[in-house]
């Protein structure tokens, strides 16, 4: 091959979501992940029976542990890829980006779903959650109220609906008795789609900024390098580019694992979108720090300075290199750089909640160390996410691929289900469009 990559020889165009066919779901890795996931859910029972005090390392000095600060406030940023990509695709007409919409929507749904699980485990008087419905008890100025309303609403309504088309599609092909349901539902989904999708972009902007506002209300207890009145804006902005970087990473990882061709034109589009978000964000953050008169704190606050520069370098340097085509055209370099951006972004979202929160402790030094139960449970939510993702991409047409793979998958499935017809639906003037046969 003379060192050529596949993309040099043929221009790959992703055109359709195609399942990762012909591979078993229950691989060894999958079973390990599922084992961790189940272990976590067993430990959740322990927490429910014996209380937060014995299950976690939390104390009155550190009331929030990794379930909230990591699983909810940090990881949901990884699942926020769907709103910047969606806005670029639907509003700014970057049509090619529709190819990765299904992956990023799936990631969003799973991450938010496990985030909700983490909140449910962490909340210690869950029997009072019905207060969400008692209007006269709402404290609408509280960022917590915003998060508690907005996140479940987003996950269970717009995100859920946006993730139904691949399911209906498979139902149509593989389960003929279900076609009536699909024929009935798909036109409804199509008719309401613009309204639902617009909601799916408004809600994450609201609650991702509310996550920043959560720390805003802790006032000067958060170190001034992080605490700023702009924190909500910086939080939602960071979520946007972390989400895009996560999408790039996961698509690349899938393509490299299952030897699928990579469409570099779409990757370039995504990187351009990400860089458009990253550079102004860094400029705004530095400007904000300087304007508030905290310039020197960037250098003379010891470990916190180090964390600050780690965030900045991890986000800026990869984004800077990704401007060059050489770094974007190699799958490995692209993955490595986007991975660093995700890491830096996660550190930025995590720091104000833990490292930079009450660092001086008013003379009393208190530490928070997560217990094994907390760590395993937190990991278990992540593993649940990955397991469900693996099942979904192997069963549903989610990962983007060239048209050729669609026909290959059809002939593969015909070996087992001879009645399958996934192509040749002819002229929609004779067959009415959109599954309505």
């Amino acid at each position: 091959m003379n060192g050529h990559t596949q993309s040099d020889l043929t221009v790959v165009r992703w055109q359709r979501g195609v399942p990762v066919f012909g591979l078993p779901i229950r691989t060894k890795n999958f079973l390990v992940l599922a084992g961790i996931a189940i272990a976590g859910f067993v430990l959740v029972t322990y927490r429910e029976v014996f209380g937060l005090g014995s299950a976690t390392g939390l104390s009155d000095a550190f009331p929030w542990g990794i379930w909230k600060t990591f699983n909810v406030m940090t990881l949901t940023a990884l699942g926020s890829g769907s709103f910047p990509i969606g806005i670029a695709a639907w509003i700014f007409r970057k049509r090619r980006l529709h190819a990765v919409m299904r992956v990023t929507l799936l990631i969003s749904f799973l991450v938010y779903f496990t985030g909700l699980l983490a909140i449910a485990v962490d909340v210690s008087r869950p029997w009072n959650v019905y207060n969400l419905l008692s209007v006269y008890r709402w404290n609408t100025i509280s960022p917590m109220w915003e998060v508690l309303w907005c996140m479940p609403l987003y996950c269970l309504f717009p995100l859920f609906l946006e993730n139904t088309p691949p399911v209906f599609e498979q139902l149509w092909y593989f389960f003929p008795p279900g076609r009536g349901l699909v024929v009935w539902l798909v036109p409804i989904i199509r008719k309401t789609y613009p309204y639902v999708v617009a909601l799916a972009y408004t809600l994450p902007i609201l609650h991702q900024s509310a996550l920043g506002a959560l720390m805003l209300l802790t006032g000067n207890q958060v170190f001034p390098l992080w605490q700023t009145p702009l924190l909500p804006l910086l939080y939602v902005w960071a979520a946007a580019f972390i989400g895009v970087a996560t999408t790039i990473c996961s698509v690349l990882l899938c393509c490299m694992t299952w030897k699928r061709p990579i469409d570099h034109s779409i990757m370039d589009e995504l990187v351009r979108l990400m860089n458009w978000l990253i550079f102004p964000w860094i400029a705004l953050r530095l400007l904000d720090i300087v304007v508030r008169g905290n310039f020197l704190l960037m250098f003379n606050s010891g470990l916190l300075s180090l964390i600050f520069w780690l965030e900045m370098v991890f986000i800026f340097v990869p984004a800077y290199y990704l401007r060059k085509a050489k770094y974007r055209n190699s799958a490995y370099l692209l993955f490595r750089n986007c991975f660093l951006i995700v890491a830096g972004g996660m550190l930025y979202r995590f720091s104000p909640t833990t490292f930079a929160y009450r660092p001086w402790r008013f003379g009393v030094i208190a530490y928070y160390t997560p217990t094994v139960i907390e760590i395993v449970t937190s990991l278990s939510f992540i593993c649940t996410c990955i397991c469900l993702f693996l099942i979904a991409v192997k069963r549903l047409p989610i990962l983007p691929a060239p048209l050729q793979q669609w026909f290959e998958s059809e002939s593969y499935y015909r070996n087992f289900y001879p009645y399958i017809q996934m192509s040749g639906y002819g002229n929609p003037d004779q067959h009415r469009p959109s599954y309505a046969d």
Partner: protein
Amino acid sequence: MSVTRRDLLKIGTLGGAAVAVGGAIGSPAQEHVPTPPRDAVGMLYDSTKCIGCKSCVVACADANALQPDTRVDSLHQAPNDLNSFTKDIIKLYKPKYGDGGSFAFVKRQCMHCVDPFCVAACPFHALEKNKTTGVVSWTPDKCIGCRYCQLACPYQIPKFDWDSFNAKIVKCEFCKERLAAGKEPACTYVCPPKAVIFGRRDVLLREAHRRIQDHPGKYFENRVYGEKEAGGTQVLYLSAVNFDYLGLPHLSPTEHPSNWLRWQERVLKFFALPVGIYVGMVTFLKQNFREHENEMDDEHKKTGLMPQL
């Protein structure tokens, strides 16, 4: 190019939304100066008068039916800080040997802020500030146990019952049952040297300033802690030593929650901006979605494959 009625409607909606958003965000900001309720009650604690007898700690536990906290040595009721069994505690500041400073006691309890962080933080008004007395109290029925009040409180007052299944937020509630019965709180009632006294907040403030005037130079920086800190508190402190040593944090007068959340309040006023964004997006989306659908159907015609949304 002719303008159809649909276009006109669209322009009208978008313009209206833009005007509403601009109006809501651009309207002059309300001056947020937290003011205490008219009949705000208060406490004045004078650290120079306190003898550290801890009568108030015992009286508090008695009046609030708190369990004795014997967790330190399994024998004596000797809590080492505010916790789920302790709403009021006396602490001692001990100067380092040889630096000539004086000892000082401090009584820690809820400050009953004029603009409390915990009340702004609580999603369902489980922590509420009484409109007449200004007492901040906790209602179990509304609390979901998110512990955001603990995170937000700059004085680190709300404590959580970590070991209980039916966990509670524990903090001083100004003996609200005793207040309702026309009595003063248990701690001020029992205090032998009257180091902590009960009264209306404005009266106590005057009393504090009178003491400072009568003994110039006796009190640290000649100021009352709680008069202006984070918009003011209803529990006021006088001390001979630095308030830092007593664990009372530096808070500037503007660092109250409504100031921290002023932008959020403005942006979310009448929910105008989110609704504006939503309406704008729907307008663009409907058009682009129609195009996308047409393209999908063309694709369908060409390839004979079912369209993918």
